[in-house]
């Protein structure tokens, strides 16, 4: 191993090409992963932020907010039967006119009405006001501005910023339920809801009721299956396009990892061929094939680790430089760590292709005596 590390430190030039190529692949892997996370977050952030043991939709809604209707009696039954805290929830997707922008330059918003504050969102603001997702900054929105929402141009004043609360790719605007209902009824008369009726319910804090994992089934049971009750993660999976996005991106990420593995395999296979004479000498003086192979793996892991570190810093800086809302990029520590683990696995896997070659190096070649 010492020998391998010394070669790395004393002949870094030999590994520059591989490091550069692997850095590009590592950057691609992390960037694509960040894009996937960003896209998923922009579709699911509002639902993911719900601190709910169960999200309740009407039976025929197929867990869609826009199709769901929950009558007041449902809420009463859950509260009385399960002792849970229940809050109404609803959303309407609209375009918002921003002061100073052109008449066709509308910002896409998801206007939410809520009673129980999601993670990162303060208690409901006053009537006609909203906490807005900070990605609206990229549309020129500022605190204190009045946005005109939907074809009815319902006015909503932005009173503060929240983060990661987009839904279906549209920036969250968090209002009290009356404001949301006004916006909904004025702009989507086909989907209008009367007072006390919500699209969904957030069920939480049933300290005397069932455990979190059992809450959805408990809700469906007490309501004789008149509703669909889902955990937050189940509700996320029901959002249209999420699973398809994840599948597509994961396939691209998988191909990138495989290409990385092939690059590492080719590079270290070439290096092994180039070092055949040296390995022959080392074997002649008593080196085991395993010692030589471990040296190769160490070099691959170090080169890949350096490439991954450079890529990690690069995508983190990129994430900081890109203004919110311009590109759905979300770089997290877990994404970088996952990418590093995948790359290191590819490095070890790539080296495995050189194992046979290392095993076949004949110590007799050092004496010029292979026959």
């Amino acid at each position, binding site marked *: 191993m*010492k*020998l391998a590390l*010394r*070669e790395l430190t*004393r*002949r870094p030039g030999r590994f520059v090409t591989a490091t550069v190529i692997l850095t590009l692949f590592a950057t691609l892997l992390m960037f694509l992963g960040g894009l996937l996370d960003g896209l998923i977050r922009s579709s699911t952030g509002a639902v993911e932020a719900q601190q709910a043991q169960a999200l309740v939709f009407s039976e025929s809604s197929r867990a869609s907010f826009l199709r769901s209707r929950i009558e007041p009696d449902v809420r009463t039954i859950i509260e009385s039967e399960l002792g849970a805290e229940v809050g109404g929830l609803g959303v309407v997707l609209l375009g918002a006119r921003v002061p100073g922008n052109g008449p066709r330059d509308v910002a896409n918003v998801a206007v939410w009405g809520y009673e129980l504050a999601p993670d990162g969102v303060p208690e409901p603001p006053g009537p006609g006001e909203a906490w807005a997702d900070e990605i609206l900054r990229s549309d020129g929105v500022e605190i204190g501005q009045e946005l005109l929402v939907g074809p009815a141009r319902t006015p909503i004043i932005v009173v503060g910023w929240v983060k990661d609360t987009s839904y279906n790719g549209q920036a969250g605007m968090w209002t009290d339920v009356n404001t949301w209902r006004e916006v909904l009824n004025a702009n989507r008369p086909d989907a209008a809801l009367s007072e006390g009726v919500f699209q969904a319910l957030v069920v939480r804090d049933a300290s005397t009721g069932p455990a979190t994992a059992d809450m959805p089934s408990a809700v469906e049971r007490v309501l004789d299956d008149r509703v669909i009750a889902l955990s937050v993660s189940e509700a996320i999976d029901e959002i249209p396009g999420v699973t398809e996005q994840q599948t597509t991106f994961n396939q691209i990420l998988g191909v990138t990892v495989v290409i990385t593995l092939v690059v590492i395999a080719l590079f270290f296979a070439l290096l092994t061929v180039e070092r055949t*004479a*040296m390995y022959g*000498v*080392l*074997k*002649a*003086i*008593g*080196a*085991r094939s395993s*010692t030589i192979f471990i040296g190769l793996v160490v070099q691959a892991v170090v080169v890949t680790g350096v490439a991954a570190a450079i890529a990690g810093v690069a995508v983190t800086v990129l994430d900081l430089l890109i203004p919110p809302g311009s590109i759905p990029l979300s770089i997290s520590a877990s994404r970088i760590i996952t990418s590093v683990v995948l790359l290191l696995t590819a490095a070890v896997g790539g080296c495995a292709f050189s194992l046979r070659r290392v095993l076949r190096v004949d*110590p*007799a070649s*050092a*004496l*010029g*005596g292979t*026959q």
Partner: protein
Amino acid sequence: MTEPALHISDVRKIYQVGGEEVVALDHAELTVAADEIVALVGPSGSGKTTLCSIAGGILSATAGTVVVGGEEISHYGSRQLTEFRQNQVGFVFQTVNLVPFLTARENLLVVDEMGRREGRPARERADRLLGELGLDDRSKNLPGQLSGGQKQRVAIGRALMNEPNLVLFDEPTSALDTEVGAQVMALIRAEMKARGTAAIVVTHDDRITEFCDRTVNIIDGVLAA
């Protein structure tokens, strides 16, 4: 009586080449005393390298008995032969073959790193060997910064690092000019005799033989004293 460094008895080595048998070594008999230096002389393809490889545990004989320093290695598998090479024999190769990114001192220590892993005693032995070989001031130089003669001296030091019973020299002066070659051979003789270590020097240069205790000729795989 001191045990011989090498005793080869009725050794045969047969290669299969294209479905045909090629006899590289035929009923070889050779004994090298504990501090004896033997010149093994023969033309190309005569079996010199095969004999050395078998004596050094790099190749296994097809038949016969090979005993090095009292240890019979004829029946050893590859793992045992690797251990044997780590501890019992030293090699000096024709094309020097030092590890190019290691200093002279590290090239000696690589023997320890690949085998015994003694640590400090090995480092002390490497320093002592470099001193004896006149390479004190070159211990931190890379092979590329050394002359041909100096490289060969480093290779000799590497061969002696594991305190072997037998050192095998494969044409050690072929890459050197006459004067430096003679100096290296004189050094080899002095080092072997000082340690009481046996050596086989493969060569086809008659001038080398004067530095050896006796000469053994080999032609077509057959040894003739």
